[in-house]
């Protein structure tokens, strides 16, 4: 028996893609939980990260918090929160779990994006008379965007993989075939579910990698491309040099 072939055969069978527990529904649930959790985490973490990056204050607190949040085992937290919130609030418990998982990457992306900007550019923006809000929106946000999208990318990747555990508390998602397969000892179903999670994660990662490239501002990209394609100097400085006065 070839487990992998069986898994793909199970995935390809039309009956898996019909009915209320069809794989397309589970996929949608997986994406839904991911989107909600990352969106909520972004609303919390991005402004906080920008505030830290702009003022340069509170970085230690953020690093400590992010480190602690990363160390929390998601499965344990999920079970704990279900117990605390009560069984009627399982979706909320799951969402909170995934939000906590997504926050560290987003927070780091937001403030690291600002910290990576040349201080002289910020200083110049202030010196020509930009207000703090204008410095934030016209200089720091656009220049910090690539690293923020990078943080978004790793948050999405972690959450979409972890949402699998939602099935343990009966919330569906692609964890469902994995769990039912385990209890039925149908390992091709377990593997099929896992393969689907992996494919989904890879697809999202590829998509966000493109977004990350698109987020680099044009002038900064021109900078990176400069070494590869030497620019023709249309107006060398020396062309306008007049003879030295003697």
């Amino acid at each position, binding site marked *: 028996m070839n487990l992998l072939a069986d898994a793909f055969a199970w995935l390809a069978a039309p009956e898996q893609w019909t009915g209320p527990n069809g794989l397309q529904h589970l996929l949608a649930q997986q994406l839904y939980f991911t989107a909600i959790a990352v969106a909520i985490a972004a609303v919390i973490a991005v402004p906080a990260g920008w505030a830290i990056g702009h003022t340069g204050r509170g970085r230690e607190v953020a690093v400590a918090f992010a480190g602690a949040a990363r160390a929390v085992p998601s499965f344990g937290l999920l079970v704990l929160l279900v117990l605390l919130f009560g069984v009627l609030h399982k979706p909320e418990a799951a969402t909170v779990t995934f939000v906590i998982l997504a926050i560290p990457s987003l927070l780091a992306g937001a403030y690291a994006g600002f910290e990576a900007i040349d201080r002289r*550019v910020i200083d110049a923006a202030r010196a020509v008379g930009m207000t703090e809000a204008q410095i934030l929106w016209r200089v720091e946000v656009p220049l910090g965007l690539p690293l923020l999208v990078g943080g978004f990318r790793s948050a999405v990747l972690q959450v979409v993989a972890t949402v699998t555990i939602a099935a343990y508390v009966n919330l569906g998602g692609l964890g469902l075939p994995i769990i039912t397969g385990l209890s039925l000892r149908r390992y091709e179903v377990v593997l099929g579910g896992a393969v689907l999670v992996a494919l989904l994660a890879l697809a999202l990662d590829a998509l966000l990698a493109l977004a990350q490239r698109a987020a680099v501002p044009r*002038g900064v990209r021109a*900078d990176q491309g400069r070494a590869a394609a030497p620019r023709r100097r249309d107006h060398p400085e020396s062309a306008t040099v007049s003879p030295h006065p003697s």
Partner: protein
Amino acid sequence: MIEFRNVTKRFPDGTVAVDAFDLVIPSRKTTVFVGSSGCGKTTLLRMINRMVEPTGGTVAIDGEDVASKQAVALRRSIGYVMQNSGLMPHFTVAENIATVPRLTGRTRRAARARALELMDVVGLDTAMADRYPSQLSGGQQQRVGVARGLASDPNILLMDEPFGAVDPIVRAELQRELIRLQRDLDKTVVFVTHDVDEAFLLGDQVAILAKGARRLQFGSPSEITEQPADDFVAAFIGAERGKRALRVKQTPHGPVLVDAEGRTQGVLVEGGA
């Protein structure tokens, strides 16, 4: 007229960058602060547009204390040109130059027209308007920086070692351009440099500063060369051994002037001005 009255700047770590500094900078002249690095000259400059707040004394423009003005409005009304141009990497050349007009509410179209006009003024080809700073040479970036400083037609232009990071040939060219610009525009220019030659070339008035922005001498380049305040100033400007230490050498065709290196710098013309 810019006035420093008993201005002191003590940083939180205890270093005193500026200690009880007094100076009156006349309008429509170029005044140069020259001194070695860390003497507080940049701190002095940045106190004029409130990028640095003094811990004592006042800085006044036309008799009005700058601390009484709103910092953002003040900065928009004063041109500022810095070392390494300080351009926004994600703005095009035209957008960089038009930064202040855009901030003060001019339309995109009007701001762009102003930017193109200024590119002409500082000797940049307007075909470069839509390029990004990273696509320009150092000298071109510095011209964009000067154009940005002039964009709101300020009365005062602050220049913080603007030509420090470009090669000597381009620097000489930019210095000549600045002299030409100043002749046409007649701004109050405050210029910071550590290069005495640059200070003497550009300055109507030169302030020679030592650590803590202690004023060693203030006067025109001629006054300082003819009558250095002390031995330190004389050594600093190179009056003893540098290129300003000239001696007369008699030749069959009349007297010439020779520098410390033995190179002939010019002919001595009797009865000249």
